[in-house]
């Protein structure tokens, strides 16, 4: 089963269909199928995940499920391991020197950390948007969106690429603003536009899951609202996990909220509670959660 992720994309799809009959068969023309709304997205399940940087344990024993077609918000005070945990979901964690992971993370039942699983393949299925907008400075707006295709796949026909770029930019609510200057450098856009460009870039490769690491923390309220609207729309196609420090954002934009906390500095972060956002914000079962969401600490 892990080999399916490790294998080339079309094979991975076919073996998924074999493995999970209820999934409607994905056609070979990936450019058209993924665009349709309401497609079943994938579930991420983690069990007893421990994450380390060298000797320091950053995250301890996280067991949770990121449900498909929902927005899962990860909240908690700084340094409690939310971002570290998020990065472990698409195997970005191991890019840090000395970083280690224990436990299990599965994408629709397939072990993401299994032997023979190619992390590059995992990242094609699980995309990521970062805290700081990071368009490639040497590329135009068009090339930035097409970058994922060029970087992760082979040659894509010009016509198809044009279509994907337009669809991704429309999907990120950026098309109208940039359609006349696609050949201009991406770094010339405003912060909010850059972040939407990065979202367009991430969805251009049509991942199964979209991870967002505080995507709005560098943006003003208007740009933040635009991104939140976008997130609400994207969840019809993708499974979304978002790290945020902004409590209003979590309550506005997410369906499920997971609260992380650390008992003391130097101790690993733990998952305190996970549940429907409404419940977490109105009647959490843990005192720590209640204190945090009501602003009594953190």
């Amino acid at each position: 089963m892990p080999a399916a992720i490790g294998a080339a994309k079309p094979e991975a799809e076919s073996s998924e269909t074999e493995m999970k009959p209820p999934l409607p068969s994905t056609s070979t023309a990936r450019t058209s199928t993924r665009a349709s709304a309401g497609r079943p997205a994938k579930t991420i399940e983690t069990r007893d995940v421990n994450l380390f940087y060298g000797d320091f344990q950053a995250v301890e024993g996280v067991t949770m499920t990121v449900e498909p077609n929902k927005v899962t918000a990860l909240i908690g005070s700084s340094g409690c391991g939310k971002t570290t945990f998020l990065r472990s979901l698409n195997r970005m964690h191991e890019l840090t020197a000395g970083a280690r992971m224990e436990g299990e993370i599965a994408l629709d039942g397939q072990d993401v950390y299994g032997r023979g699983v190619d992390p590059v393949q995992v990242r094609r299925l699980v995309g990521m948007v970062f805290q700081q907008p990071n368009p490639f400075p040497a590329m135009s707006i068009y090339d930035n969106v097409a970058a994922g295709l060029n970087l992760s796949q082979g040659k894509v026909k010009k016509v198809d690429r044009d279509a994907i770029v337009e669809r991704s930019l429309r999907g990120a609510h950026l098309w109208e603003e940039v359609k006349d200057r696609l050949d201009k450098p991406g770094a010339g856009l405003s912060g909010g536009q850059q972040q939407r460009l990065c979202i367009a870039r991430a969805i251009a490769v049509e991942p199964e899951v979209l991870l967002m690491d505080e995507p709005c923390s560098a943006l003003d309220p208007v740009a933040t609202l635009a991104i939140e609207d976008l997130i609400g729309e994207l969840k019809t196609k993708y499974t979304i996990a978002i790290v945020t420090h902004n409590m209003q954002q979590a309550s506005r934009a997410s369906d499920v909220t997971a609260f992380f906390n650390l008992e003391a500095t130097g101790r690993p972060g733990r998952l305190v509670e996970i549940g429907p956002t409404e419940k977490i914000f109105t009647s959490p079962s843990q005192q720590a959660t209640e204190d945090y969401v009501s602003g009594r600490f953190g």
Partner: protein
Amino acid sequence: MTALDGRVLPDWAPYGACAASAGLVALLLIAAGSFSIALLLACTAVMACLATYAWSRAVEGPRRAKDRLVTLLILSAFALALIPLLSLLFEVAKRGIPGLSLEFLTSDARGKIGGGGAAHALVGTLVITGVAALISVPIGLMGAIYLTEYGEGRLRRALTFFVDVMTGIPSIVAGLFAYAVFALIFGPGIRLGVMGSVALSVLMIPIVIRASEEVLKIVPNHLREAAYALGAPKWKTIARVVLPTAFAGLITGVMIALARVVGETAPLLVTTGVVDSINSNPFEGRMQNLAVYAYSEYRTPGVFKQASYDRAWAAALLLIVIVMVLNLVARLIYRRYRTETR
């Protein structure tokens, strides 16, 4: 008077202090009967520093006085560094321009006693450095990519250390190394243009590695992560994201390395030899180059001494012009392709 404003020296104060010091020093030196430009400049600098400090301290207080003193010291150091450079450029231009002519640039020296030009040396310089660049740039660039993107731990540190050591090896040693390698294969007494290129590569590779490494290091890590998050394999991340982002800096590094070796004399003396006719094939026969040309014109001027000396100066001037053009091209490329990175 509030705490925020205080008495300030007039805007002309530093210039006035310098001019007054110069005048006073000149008078004193003439009176002492030991006037010389060098002594005047040195004493003026010291005098101006002291005078400005004292004047400013009396009027403006100690903090501003210190500021003015240090400003003057830094300016003096800068001027001191510029003097040899400017005098060298001036001298080479003054003596080199008379020897520059169309004939100098277009004809070789074969069979032309007391005449001829340096075309063979110019061609040789371009071919030898060109081939050296062809050898060094790929090796140096890949070495830098290894050091920044792949190397870890002790091996990486050891390599960095030896690259640093390599930048300091005497150029004649590089020449002898190249000679020894080719002599082992082709027998002693061999002289080829490509031998010179190999010798120059030994000097150039560490410079290219160091310059490229610095440039690759400042490509922000978040760009690499963005590429990885899109499912890009490492090699594509480097080829499509890291290298294009660093492109302008990489070209500058290569150009600086080229400028550094284009004027080398010693390693070419033992590897490419001295010859009078144009040879543009680096794989056959001896090859002249500008630095060795200037050296041999000066060393063995023959019958018409002054003409030979003029040609030596002209060759030196030509070399400086080539280095300047290389630097200018590097700057233009840098400006054209520079990418803003946070």
